[in-house]
């Protein structure tokens, strides 16, 4: 189940501003609290934070809205980002890297998701393979990539720890995205 949260609307409702810019740490904290409340009302699935109508995002606000939200863990709901401009991407990547975090970015419903933040190359490769070919266990993934199962398992564990894929028993699956 995918739930879209329009970040510009949360900003206007929370801070009562006529501007669409996500700036200042205080604003970020208020927006994150509001997003957190929305997520708490969801029963699992994926929450897509839609930045498409957001103006600029500064480092302090990106840290509060995205990095701190990912650090809080959001129960059974996994957070993904969408509608990012080049400057949003750059700022959010900076704060995620600072915290050794990563997030899935879904640019368009028909486009391939990608990772943003600090992820090693092996986890990146496994992520792309999962999205291209669907769910797999570590052994199958290792065979696909010409790796031993342990190496594939390590990469999959990294992705699970960062909440970038789902684990069901021994099988690892991409996040449900539109």
């Amino acid at each position, binding site marked *: 189940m995918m739930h879209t949260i329009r970040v510009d609307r949360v900003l206007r409702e929370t801070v009562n501003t006529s501007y669409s*810019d996500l700036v200042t740490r205080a604003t970020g904290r208020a927006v994150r609290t509001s997003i957190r409340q929305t997520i708490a009302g969801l029963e699992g699935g994926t929450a897509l934070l839609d930045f498409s109508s957001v103006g600029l995002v*500064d480092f302090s606000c990106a840290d509060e809205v995205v990095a701190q939200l990912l650090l809080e863990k959001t129960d059974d709901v996994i957070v993904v980002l969408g509608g990012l401009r080049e400057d949003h991407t750059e700022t959010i990547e*900076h704060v995620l890297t600072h915290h050794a975090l990563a997030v899935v970015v879904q640019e368009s419903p028909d486009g391939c998701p990608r990772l943003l933040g600090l992820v090693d190359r092996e986890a990146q490769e496994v992520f792309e393979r999962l999205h291209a070919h669907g769910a797999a266990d570590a052994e199958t993934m290792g065979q696909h990539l010409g790796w031993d199962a342990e190496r594939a398992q390590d990469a999959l564990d990294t992705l699970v720890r960062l909440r970038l894929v789902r684990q069901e028993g021994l099988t690892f699956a991409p996040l449900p995205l539109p």
Partner: protein
Amino acid sequence: MPEADEVRRYWVRAGFFGPAAELFELHGKVPKVKVEELSDVLLSVTAVRAMEDVHGVVGRIQEGAARILTNELGLEPAATARFGMALSEACQNIVEHSGTSGWVAVHAYTFRRRLGGRRVVVIAVGDAGVGFRRSLEATQARRFGDRWGDAAALEAAVIQEVSRFRDPGRGQGLPGIKRYLLRWQGKLSIRSGTARIAIVPPWDEDVPMTESLPPFPGAQLQIVIPAKEGAPTT
């Protein structure tokens, strides 16, 4: 009022007298300037007292900033947002660290001597607060030992990128500003207490650190963003 007409007129264009009248008794006549003389003023002197003021500053400046940064300075279109971020972080430093209010202004100039007529945009932020040394003293003084002072505090904040907050998410503003300035060959300088630190681009001949200056309470931060090489000169 300053005696020199040129200075008086510059201060009018900068919007200095409005905020100044709240703090000083002004004597003398404020000259009038023509609207066209104001075209280089992206943001007149504006008070920053709270986080809401930062929203206002960033929101108001974007249209004018886009015009000057892309058309006159020849920077990439995304530079407007990056500029807004740098401005926002610089203003937040006042609210977060100074313990009082401050002011910000943004102007475009032509640097004839240093850049051979290239245009620049300058962000100037100042406050009369506690300054960098007092702001960082509780967390950094022991680490520096006898070296601790205004220069060491500026070095800790600007070069070592430390924050007074223990939260690991804090202190990303100045490093973010530095990253953009590196990309644009921009200059950052901060004066606080008796010291001044500068990140000096190749086109400038400033020194990285100056000490034993007359004491200045609070902090003055200046960011200079030059036109790309090859952009039209005046």
